């Protein structure tokens, strides 16, 4: 089971790379925003899986919850910014 979690973790880390590419290269700001959101979601899952690997799931759940809150707020802030500015 442990090696399965490790494999999933590594695979998710690899999947972050294309998102990172889009976040850096992405032609529009919206592309970058969506890419950052996707990376945030992946990081959350990776954190919980790391909790399984280190046998300290309670601790890592705490960290991932903070990450989820901050991810939510940053998305909302960006959306709000575009709503007010009305341009991309």
């Amino acid at each position: 089971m442990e090696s399965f979690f490790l494999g999933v973790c590594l695979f998710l880390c690899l999947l972050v790379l294309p998102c990172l590419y889009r976040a850096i290269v992405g032609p529009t700001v919206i592309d970058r925003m969506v890419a950052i959101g996707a990376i945030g979601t992946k990081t959350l899952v990776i954190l919980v899986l790391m909790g399984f690997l280190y046998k300290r799931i309670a601790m890592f759940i705490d960290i991932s919850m903070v990450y989820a809150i901050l991810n939510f707020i940053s998305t909302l802030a960006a959306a709000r910014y575009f709503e007010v500015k009305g341009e991309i």
Partner: protein
Amino acid sequence: MDKKNATHRTHTYSPLTAYHPIFSQRRIEQVRHFALAFVLLFLFWLLLSGHYDIFHISIGIFCCLFISYTSGDFLFLHIGAGDTHLIIPRLLMYIPWLFYQIVSSNIHLVKLVFSPINRLNPRILPYQVKLTNGLSLVTLANSITLTPGTITIELEDNTFFIHAIDDASANDLLTGEMENRVDKVFLPIAHTKKRSREMLAAEADNLIVKTVVRLFTPFIQIYALYVIAHGHYSPGGGFQGGVILAAGIILLSLAFGLKKTLTKITERLIVMLSSLGVLIYGGIGLLCLLLGGNYLDYKELDILLNIGIPQARSMGILGVEIGVGIAVMACMISIFYDIATAGDLPDHNQSVDENIESFNPGDSN
């Protein structure tokens, strides 16, 4: 509405209410809300905490009382009279169905992604609903977003603007099964239509964001206090907890507008809180110095507290964490205020500056 009026009348004419304003309808409602918020938040605290000794539970009770007093109101959406308690079992019946929908459309989407033929047909479609209650509109919007393939973009009066990725997702939605089920969940409060229409008018823009933020904020604050109070067992402490507390306030001002937040949490209060935080931190440090130890040498606090050196250290650390948490929260909020208004905050008694208006033009109240 009629029912509420009727009960109100009986209370007005009862001799108790005539002489004791404490028994007025509004007061009873407030106490009921406070108690309910406290119970919900305390259950959340127990779920998080994992330390069930008297010390931690009493900290939890204190934190939950404080948060239910300051922001417990957010949990109640003023959905009006009606059998609101009947919603909960109906909602519990709805959630498994929603879960099944999420899983099945996930599988559909995976097939779509890996299929060699391009069957994607993304478009934005308007979707008129017959729901009128604000809460049911928010539930439907979130359910649509949760099921992969469709995303709610905007809600205007009773029309959703939905982004659908292919024909099947769009047709699934347009059958209206989800709408009917949501309607069934909120049937007990369906007769409060008039009131909810007024609410819709008042919170016309960003109804979804506002409702979700309202429900989230008290739990975020409890979580922040949990992080501060359990800093010496789990990751976190004063700094992290303070940032989460500030994030809760920032979330509120993003959803409801900076103007409204500034009336509740004034810059004056923020300056006072940041000084108070530093005072608590420095005060505990100096107290240790006065008692004959080094700065922040917690074991000297045992002379005052008389509970044994390990406990005195623990108490000292907790006190310092609280101080740091307050100071960090205040600094974060003040940085946010400065950035959001481009450093041009109005005085609390002056009329609101143009900068804030431009930050949030939609907020009319």
